[in-house]
């Protein structure tokens, strides 16, 4: 089965800036100076689906969502996880 290519989207109305998402998915989400998430517009890379799903499920405000990417969008290989945590 072909893997679903998805993007991470934050609903800014629902988001209160808890920051859990940036803890769980630092490869795609950083926090601005006020603590609100800045989410990469790129599709979720191969190998990070589980982390992305966990981030979505862990948001205390249920503000984080996974949406199907538009047709033709390809997922990239993930960055090395240890490196990006530094």
């Amino acid at each position, binding site marked *: 089965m072909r893997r679903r290519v998805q993007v991470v989207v934050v609903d*800014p109305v629902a*988001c209160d800036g808890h920051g859990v998402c940036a803890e769980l998915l630092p490869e795609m989400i950083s926090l601005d100076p006020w603590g*609100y998430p*800045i989410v990469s517009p790129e599709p979720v890379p191969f190998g990070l689906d589980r982390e992305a799903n966990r981030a979505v499920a862990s948001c205390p405000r249920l503000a984080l969502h996974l949406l199907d990417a538009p047709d033709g969008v390809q997922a990239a290989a993930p960055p090395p996880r240890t490196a990006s945590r530094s």
Partner: protein
Amino acid sequence: MSPLLPRLLRGLGADGASIGLPAHLDLWGPLPDTRRGGLVDDVADAGLRGHGGAWFPAATKWRAVAGAGGRPVVVANGAEGEPASAKDALLLERLPHLVLDGAVAAARALRAEHVIVFAPARRRPRLIEAIEARRRSAADGVSIELAVAPDRFVAGQETAVVSYLNGRSGLPTFARFHPVWRSGVGGAPTLLHNAETLAHVALIARFGSEWYRQAGRPDAPGTVLLTVTGVDGAPSVVETQKGALLGAVVGGIDRQRCRAVLLGGYGGTWVDPDTASRLPVTEEAARAVGATFGAGIVAMLPHDRCPLAETARIARYLDQEKADQCGPCVRGLSGMVAELDGLAFGARRAGDAARRLGQLCDLVEGRGACRHPDGAARLVRSALRIFADEVLQHQQRGPCPESRAPGWLPTGDEAPRHVRSGNGAIRPGATGALTSRSRK
């Protein structure tokens, strides 16, 4: 039917009166039956774009609504929360049947049964009169309701309108999750158009797309209403063919009297007078110089005013009018106001204000449910770009003498302004604060 100007404004009488249904039908003829379809194609062939500010192709919206399944609702949006805009007020006050025709034609074409007119309380008497007249004539075959729009800047944003009509907050929602074309008023697919867009539809329904395209340019067909505020502060509504040079349309922009031109409203951009003079009135031309016509707003800042002070006042207004929903907008806009106040009016922290303002723009852009923060950032960025000399002077020497002058564009506290068009005048300003929704 001649393509020459005026088009939409042809029905304006010299006496300033609102045109009634019989006179409207005498002028334009009966509204053709658009139930059989084809109007969507005409709207597409005409190249009609939304005149509420986004310039989105109208037919794309229509097709999305038509394909969404279920019986759609049509909303005529006359909320016009933008203080520097008066074109929708003019249409709804003086030419209400043109807007209603467009909404009815769209409803028939999309097999909708309900039209909702969304407009501020002060538009209510005229609209009730117009809707009653149509009800008596029983020619429309669709019901028309009036809903009173709250008096606030973001009230007319598409998702905010739908939220309000559904009995909720009336604030914007995250459009990506809530596209109104799929699920809008009462959950129905909703076609929401600005009042002027529907007025154009009324004429396309009668005369077709080829006629529509006789005005303007092949790449920017048709006409557009602009609300022009001159250096004297008096706004007037003018209709022009797209592609005409802005300087000619507004009767000349005099560098000696005008310091800068605000295009596109409070979430728009400052443009220097020479660039503005030479600018063809098309959204593409505006975007090519980093600007937008938005909802058709052109405002000329007098030479004896401080552009940074004016930008600070407008930013304060945008900050006050934000929906207070999305973190980056809440924090970012108040940060911008603090920086701009410091830069424009006080020595406090002004030294590095331009750099910090640029960072704040980066931080808010694209991060709200609606485009309110993007508009604020666009305004601030254009000020930093166009008024770079003034920024330096303020940073080095403190506020200029002109910054003590009173505010120029309306930012909330002023008395109502007269809006001129043709020989008539209307009063759009007085805020009849009816906050509850009123249906008839």
